[in-house]
């Protein structure tokens, strides 16, 4: 037990993670090869058959699909995902700059959701069954029910078109980040708020909080030093899922706000059929989701010392 079991868990989680990423990328590779023949839309009617063959050869599209797949895997292991069909630059470098934009937006949204959701949840729990609680819960339910693409358009309508306070889209300064962050983070903040609230209510009824009260500790000490840590466990537990939500959400939000991130890139590559870039993007995304989940799993023992002793 102890340190050895943690490293054993880490290794097995890493292996499983690699398997998952491998499966995802394989599915996307196979589906995209079934989708359309890139040679058809990269050429005109005047292109001769010979030129088409040559192009096929260059793009790695000749031969049976099984061979193509094996070749792709051999290259992929060396982090060579081929070149973009359109720009001819390496696919991974096409994705890189876009991924950092998405990371920016995703991180901002995650922080926003925590900063809004957790305090609101605590306040609601401490003032349970008061108008404050009621209002906070109403906000959370609204946040969960509002479709993010509609919310984004509404924000653009009011803050950009009517009030002219914010840019309608694109990226640049911090002001470009405000509306997309709210749009992307609202659902997560509603979820965090509800989890914090119910966690806090549960923990305030436990024996150790009662003991702390009986000892005569101040209420603020009880809340901040004893209760909060427990109340936030469920919030931490679903952090991995939240990252998945945020990444899925970013595809829509980037589209609404013309944010030049990886989601918009993927939509674009699918419409133009630039499959190497698409696969590179999917590789980056699935790896980050898997990594986030592993990190969350590994952080449990730090957040909750009760797990440290036991095996998971």
């Amino acid at each position, binding site marked *: 037990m102890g340190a050895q079991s943690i490293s054993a868990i880490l290794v097995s989680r890493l292996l499983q993670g690699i398997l998952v*990423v491998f*499966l995802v990328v394989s599915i*996307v590779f196979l589906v995209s090869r079934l989708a359309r023949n890139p040679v058809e839309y990269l050429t005109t009617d005047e292109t001769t058959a010979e030129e088409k063959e040559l192009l096929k050869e260059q793009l790695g599209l000749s031969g049976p699909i099984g061979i193509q797949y094996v070749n792709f895997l051999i290259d992929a292991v060396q982090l060579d995902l081929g070149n973009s069909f359109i720009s001819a630059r390496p696919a991974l470098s096409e994705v890189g700059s876009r991924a950092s934009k998405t990371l920016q937006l995703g991180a901002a949204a995650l922080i926003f959701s925590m900063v809004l959701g957790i305090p609101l949840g605590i306040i609601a729990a401490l003032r349970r069954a008061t108008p404050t609680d009621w209002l906070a819960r109403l906000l959370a339910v609204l946040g969960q029910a509002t479709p993010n693409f509609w919310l984004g*358009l509404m924000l653009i309508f009011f803050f950009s078109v009517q009030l002219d306070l914010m840019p309608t889209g694109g990226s640049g300064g911090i002001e470009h980040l405000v509306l997309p962050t709210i749009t992307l983070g609202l659902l997560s903040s509603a979820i965090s708020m509800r989890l914090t609230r*119910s966690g806090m209510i549960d923990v305030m009824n436990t024996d150790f909080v009662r003991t702390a009260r009986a000892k005569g500790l101040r209420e603020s000490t009880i809340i901040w030093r004893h209760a909060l840590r427990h109340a936030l466990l469920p919030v931490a537990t679903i952090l991995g899922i939240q990252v998945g939500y945020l*990444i*899925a959400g970013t595809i829509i939000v980037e589209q609404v706000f013309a944010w030049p991130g990886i989601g918009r890139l*993927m939509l674009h590559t699918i419409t133009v059929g630039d499959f190497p870039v698409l696969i590179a993007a*999917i590789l980056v995304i*699935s790896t980050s989701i898997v990594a986030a989940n592993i990190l969350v799993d590994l952080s449990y023992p730090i957040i909750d010392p009760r797990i440290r002793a036991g095996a998971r």
Partner: protein
Amino acid sequence: MSIEAAAPAADTIRRGFRIGVSWQRLLLLTPALIILGVFLIAGIFADLLSAYDPEEIVLIRRLMPPVLQEGGSWAHPLGTDNLGRDILSRVMHGARVSLLVVVTCIPASALIGTLIGLLAGWRVGWWDRLLMRLVDMQLALPALLFALLISVVFGRSLLNVIVIIIIFSWSGYARLVRADVLSLREQEFVVAARASGASDRRILFRHVLPNIVNTIVIMATLDVPAVILIEAALSFLNIGVAPGTPSWGAMISEGRNFMTIAWWPIWMPGIAILLVSLTGNLMGDWLRDTLDPRLRNVR
């Protein structure tokens, strides 16, 4: 005591429903039920109720405002869109699209997910590990992206939307059912049933399943707004229903370009989505609190 009598399912359900509805809940539930009723009637009788063909283009009547605004008329209570189509008729037919997605996707994914979850929880080992990797995979591949690929390969249609949603929502049920089976399989009444020689199938369907039904019903209710939102999002991104189909998401996508000169083409379907999704969430929460308070943290 017979083994049958030991299964506490029927009892739990009855006890669940006996908990009264507080007046606060009622205050929220009444409007929710009304909205649900309107949604169902609009969706089912869309053809009878709507005055216009939702896909009929009349350019001369385009972007007419709703009735309460200057220039609006009762002929088009919610106004018309950029192609002169009646928005009220389109919102009602949009309800039908949402309803269709709900009544096909949710039973199908609940059924598939439950069966696989039962199997994985019961036969721990190989099956179980396979299932959990599948679940991980779905977490790592955003449904939207997969939908995008499908729409490129097979084209845009309501059927494809339904298939995509089923592919991506069965795993939630499977995970939940599996967790419940894992804890139930060690309980006395299951052990007793096994000891008395009951077959696996009998144990699972007569003894284990009745104890999980509540969980599945709650999950399915909470899935209603989720599924409606996914369809709307797909159609908004132009990878959902076929072009022209009056889906709420597609209406918002079309209205988007005229947002600055006409607010109603995106407000009306947006409000429809919001109301229905709000209703689904409220009903789901209420069911969960009534049937199974343990599940508060599921979502």
